[in-house]
C-alpha cells in the first residue's frame, strides 16, 4: 500500500444507475471536499466496508465526480452492489498510467472495445466527443455478447452525433437486433484504417490479442497501439507484486501499455 495513500479516502455515492442485470455505474465524489484528478484509463481501488477492495476503472470523469462501471463477480463487487445514493465508500487512487490522449491529438483514432472493456475507454471517447476538432477520423469498434449486454447506449448515440464512427457487433443474434453479428475483428478487418492512427484496445485479453493482430496486419504502426491489461491488482502502488506481468507491475506501469512493451508477455501462458 502506498505510503502517500495509506488509507482509503471517503467518497460519497452521488448516483447509482443500472446498466445490465449484473452491471451498474456508481458515481462518487470526495466526501472531504478535496479535489480529485483522474485521467482516462486510470483505476481506483474501491473499498466496500466489511468486504474488501477491488480495482475498478474510471468510466467517466466529470469535474470531481468519478463514475465506475462495475460487474458483480466477486465478494467485493457484490458488496459494492449494495451501495445507494448517500452512502460512503472508501477509495484509493486514481492509480496507474492511462490512455495517451495528448499524443492522439491531431491524428486519427481507432478504439476497439470488447464487453465491459468499453468502460475504461468511455472517458477517452468523452474527451474526443467534447474536443472533436482536435482529432481526425475516429472509429469505435465495440463487440459485445448480445443485444441485452450492450453498454452505454445513450453514449453511443451521442458519440455518433459527434462524428465518431460507431460500429457495434454482437456475438449472438436475436430477433430484436438488426445490426451485425460476428466477432469484433470482422468489422475491423473490413474497415479502412489509417496506418498512422492511434489505436486503443480494451477487453478480454484474447480479444485484445486478436484485435491487435488484425490492426497490425492492416499495417498499423505497433508503436501507436495501446492495450489496457488486467491483472490481480491489490495495492495499486507497485508494492505488493500481485499484478506482475514480466518486468512490469500492471498497477504502476499500466494498466495501459504500448503494444511493443507487452506483446511478448501476452504470448506466455504462465503470465
Amino acid at each position: 500500500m502506498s505510503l502517500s495513500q495509506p488509507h482509503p479516502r471517503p467518497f460519497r455515492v452521488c448516483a447509482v444507475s443500472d446498466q445490465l442485470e449484473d452491471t451498474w455505474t456508481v458515481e462518487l465524489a470526495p466526501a472531504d471536499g478535496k479535489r480529485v484528478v483522474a485521467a482516462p484509463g486510470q483505476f481506483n481501488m474501491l473499498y466496500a466496508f466489511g468486504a474488501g477492495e477491488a480495482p475498478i476503472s474510471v468510466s467517466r470523469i466529470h469535474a470531481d465526480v468519478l463514475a465506475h462501471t462495475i460487474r458483480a463477480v466477486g465478494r467485493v463487487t457484490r458488496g459494492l452492489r449494495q451501495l445507494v445514493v448517500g452512502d460512503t465508500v472508501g477509495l484509493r487512487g486514481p492509480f496507474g498510467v492511462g490512455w495517451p490522449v495528448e499524443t492522439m491529438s491531431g491524428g486519427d483514432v481507432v478504439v476497439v472495445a470488447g464487453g465491459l472493456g468499453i468502460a475504461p475507454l468511455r472517458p477517452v471517447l468523452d474527451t474526443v466527443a467534447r474536443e472533436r476538432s482536435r482529432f481526425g477520423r475516429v472509429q469505435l469498434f465495440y463487440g459485445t455478447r448480445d443485444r441485452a449486454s450492450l453498454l452505454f447506449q445513450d453514449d453511443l448515440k451521442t458519440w455518433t452525433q459527434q462524428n465518431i464512427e460507431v460500429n457495434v457487433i454482437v456475438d449472438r443474434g436475436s430477433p430484436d437486433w438488426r445490426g451485425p453479428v460476428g466477432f469484433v475483428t470482422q468489422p475491423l478487418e473490413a474497415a479502412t484504417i489509417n496506418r498512422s492512427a492511434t489505436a486503443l484496445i480494451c477487453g478480454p485479453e484474447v480479444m485484445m490479442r486478436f484485435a491487435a493482430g488484425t490492426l497490425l496486419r492492416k499495417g498499423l504502426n505497433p508503436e501507436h497501439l495501446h492495450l489496457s491489461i488486467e491483472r490481480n491488482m491489490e495495492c495499486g502502488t507497485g508494492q505488493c507484486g500481485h499484478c506482475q506481468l514480466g518486468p512490469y507491475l500492471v498497477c504502476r506501469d499500466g494498466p495501459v501499455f504500448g503494444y511493443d512493451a507487452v506483446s511478448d508477455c501476452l504470448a506466455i501462458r504462465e503470465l
Partner: protein
Amino acid sequence: MKTQRMDQLIGAHPFFEHLSQAVSEIVSGCGENQVFEPGEYLAREGQAADHFFLLRSGRVSLEVSVPGKGALIVETIETGDVLGWSWLVERYRWVFDARAVEPVRAIALDGRCLREKLGHNPALANELYSRFVRVLADRLTGARMRLMDMYSAPDDTSSDVP
C-alpha cells in the same frame, strides 16, 4: 447515370481486389446484378448452391431454423463481403438460410459455370481457392472466438476481476 460494366463492378469489390485481367474476364462472364428487399431470401438451407454473392451494399443474415425458437442468426454478412462457399463443396447445397436484413445489392456469380471452368483453368482455380480460403480462415477464427463466450461473466466468482 453511367452504367458500370460487370468486370468493373467485380474489380471494385474487395473480394476480387487485384484480380488479373484474364481471370476477371472469366468471372465477369458468370456474374449478374441482383437486388433483394428486406426479408427476401438469397439462399435456403438444403437447396442447390449454384451461386455465390458479392455484397455491394446491405446486410444479409445467415440463419438456421430451430424448432420452437424460429430462425437463429448465426452471423451477418456485410457490404464488401462474399456470401457462400457451398458451391465449391461437393453436394453443392446451402448449409444456412441467407436473408436480406436491409435492401441488398449484390453480384450473383454462377457457381456451376465457374465449377466447370476451374478444372481446366489453374489460374482461375488458384485465384478463387486462395481468396475463399482467406475468407474461411477469418470466419472460422471469428466463430471460434464467439464460442468462447468471452464477454460473459466469469464462472469463478472468487475473484473480483471481471
